[in-house]
């Protein structure tokens, strides 16, 4: 879904509509704790709390409690983030980050050996994830530079921005001009035979860190559509599926959903997909939650009506990558993984997410 062509189109927001419904404390409200009841889905919780089906931030904030977005267990206590991304009223992302920075400064990490700086490369225009004009170089770049100073690391590094994303894969990393690129989707390499050449190349030539972020891919339909709540991908057989032209369909292809099992419609924009759905010309729109909710918001009659399939979703994970010919590649990924693991556990991972989002929103307001 997020091939390098798409990075420039990506805009992340927490889509929300003013005036939520709930009044009671047990209601699903932004900025509060909520205990899952029978029949709840992340989509329905987001809808009540934010007025949109975009539950990406709820998923992010509760990543360690939710194994799959489609199987929510009754009784799970979820933290529903505030509209600005904070976990709660009293939660200050900057405090969490500062605390971790102080902890790091107090650790004496010494080494005898010379350690060459790790050369990190990213690109501009991928808001809010990467860009020189963004705080810390963007959310994903911040995750990388922070990880190199957590989990027992104190690693010198440099960050550069090369806007030709294709060149990262084709030239910069294979030649060793840079060590790590931020950040790339990992294809489902277990389904190698069903992948296109570019994805196969990623599987063959690259090593991946732990996921740094997982975008929830949603499959949106109108409630009365026959495909609205199918329970398996195979059940989409015969459907007309809308997917923005140029955006990858690998997530569906690897499930056997290819022409002529299904029919793909490829307009130029996400908004057009939603319009086609409202006109009944397509059955399902394949869009990640954030882009999906944003597109729905642009089509007034779709708001509150078009919704992602509560039974099916996919996680598209983003990673730091190194080329397999980099002699130190695996070592660098091991270091990054240690840092990331500590950040997930300390809450700093989420704090950077929400701090980057709010900083980005300030920039754009």
């Amino acid at each position, binding site marked *: 879904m997020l091939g390098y062509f798409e990075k420039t189109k990506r805009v992340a927001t927490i889509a929300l509509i003013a005036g939520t419904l709930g009044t009671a404390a047990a209601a699903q409200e932004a900025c509060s704790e909520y205990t899952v009841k029978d029949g709840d889905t992340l989509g329905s919780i987001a809808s009540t709390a934010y007025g949109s089906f975009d539950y990406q931030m709820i998923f992010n904030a509760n990543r360690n409690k939710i194994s799959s977005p489609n199987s929510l267990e009754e009784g799970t206590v979820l933290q529903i983030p505030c509209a600005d991304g904070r976990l709660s009223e009293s939660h200050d992302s900057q405090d969490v980050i500062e605390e971790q920075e102080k902890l790091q400064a107090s650790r004496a990490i010494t080494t005898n050996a010379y350690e060459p700086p790790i050369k990190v490369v990213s690109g501009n225009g991928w808001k809010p994830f990467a860009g020189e004009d963004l705080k810390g170089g963007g959310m994903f770049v911040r995750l990388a530079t922070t990880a190199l100073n957590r989990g027992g690391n104190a690693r010198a590094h440099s960050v550069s921005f090369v806007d030709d994303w294709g060149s990262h894969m084709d030239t910069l990393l294979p030649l060793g001009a840079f060590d790590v690129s931020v950040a790339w989707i990992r294809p489902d390499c277990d389904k190698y035979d069903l992948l296109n050449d570019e994805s196969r190349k990623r599987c063959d030539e690259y090593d991946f860190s732990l996921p740094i972020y997982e975008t929830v891919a949603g499959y949106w339909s109108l409630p009365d559509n026959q495909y609205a709540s199918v329970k398996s991908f195979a059940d989409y057989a015969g459907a007309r599926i809308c997917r923005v032209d140029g955006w990858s369909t690998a997530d569906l292809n690897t499930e056997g959903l290819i022409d002529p099992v299904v029919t793909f419609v490829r307009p130029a924009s996400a908004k057009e997909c939603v319009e086609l759905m409202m006109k009944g010309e397509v059955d399902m729109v394949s869009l990640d939650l954030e882009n999906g909710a944003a597109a729905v918001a642009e089509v007034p009659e779709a708001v509150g009506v078009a919704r992602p399939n509560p039974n099916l979703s996919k996680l598209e994970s983003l990673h730091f990558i190194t080329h*397999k010919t980099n002699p130190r590649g*695996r070592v660098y990924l*091991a270091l990054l*993984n240690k840092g990331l693991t500590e950040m997930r556990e300390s809450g700093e991972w989420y704090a950077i997410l929400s701090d980057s989002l709010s900083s980005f929103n300030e920039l754009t307001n």
Partner: protein
Amino acid sequence: MKKLTTTALVTLAGLAATAAEVEAQAACETYRVKRGDTLREIAQAAYGNDEIREIYKHNKQAIGRNPNIIVIGTVLQLPCADGSLPGDETAKTAPITEPVETAADEGQDVPKVISFVTANGYLPYTDESLPGQGIFTALVERAMLRANPEQPYTVTFVNDWAAHLEALLPSMAFDASFPWTRPGCEVQKDLSAIEFYSCQNYVYSSPFYEIVDGFFSRTGSIYDGATHYEALEGATICRPEGYSTSHLVEANLLPPVVTLSQPDTAVDCFDLLMDGAVDVVALDTRSGAHLVAAMGLEQQVSENDILSSIVPLQVAVHAENPNADELIADLNSGLILMQESGEWRDMISDALQGEIQKQAGGVMN
């Protein structure tokens, strides 16, 4: 550069260093070096063999760094049959400073040949079937070439790692073995017998390469995705015999906390994993991933991305080896030359590229 390569499965009995046969001519006495003497001749006269190492070992200070050069008038203590030294220390006079270039004088040009020993099966680092006989083998040989091109050496494969440290090097059958990791001598509390011996008796080159030691388990098992070492307590862990246990020590995963299985090879470990006889395979992650692919186990075996340790690989030399200082100095200076020129990086990168092409070829079949 002269190089001889042989492959031998050596029986240990034939190599065991026993006390030299003493022909009681000049053994157990002090002896003053005369013009024309060589250590070899002295050993022949005293012991009936060429074992100059015993004489050198007990007279290092008197002889100096190079056993080929003994100074006229030097008083040597020739060890007795039981290894003890003669008590007579009266015959000490200042040696005439006229170095006897014994090798040249006698026309017996027997240049010392440095003998390295390694073993097969540690892909892609050491294996006769690989280009350069493995990445690590190639690096060591190149370092010797860069640092000391006139120094002849041999590389032999003896497929019994434990024997290298326990018998082959102590008996001086070989000068050096690779790859090994120096135990944490200063910090580790419970060193195993061989680790303690290594700390006392081995000297190590600088690291030629760093690997990431990690864990592999059956996909979907309770160990798959373990985030803390505690999760592996009670498991049966497989690690081939002779491989360093530093990662397990660091993780506090040694018997009785876990059960340790130590078959001959890494392939054995994966077979045991598939049979259910072991729960987890502890191995270098690149080497393990390579084997998993070669054995066609990608779907059944998962690599743990979180629990890993970065481990240096070095060349080990017995401290009592008269060549130790010079050899370590050569290896280290050769390595520095290779790193400065970029040769280190290029050699490894090219070898890893060869690995990619192999893999890609395999998968497309």
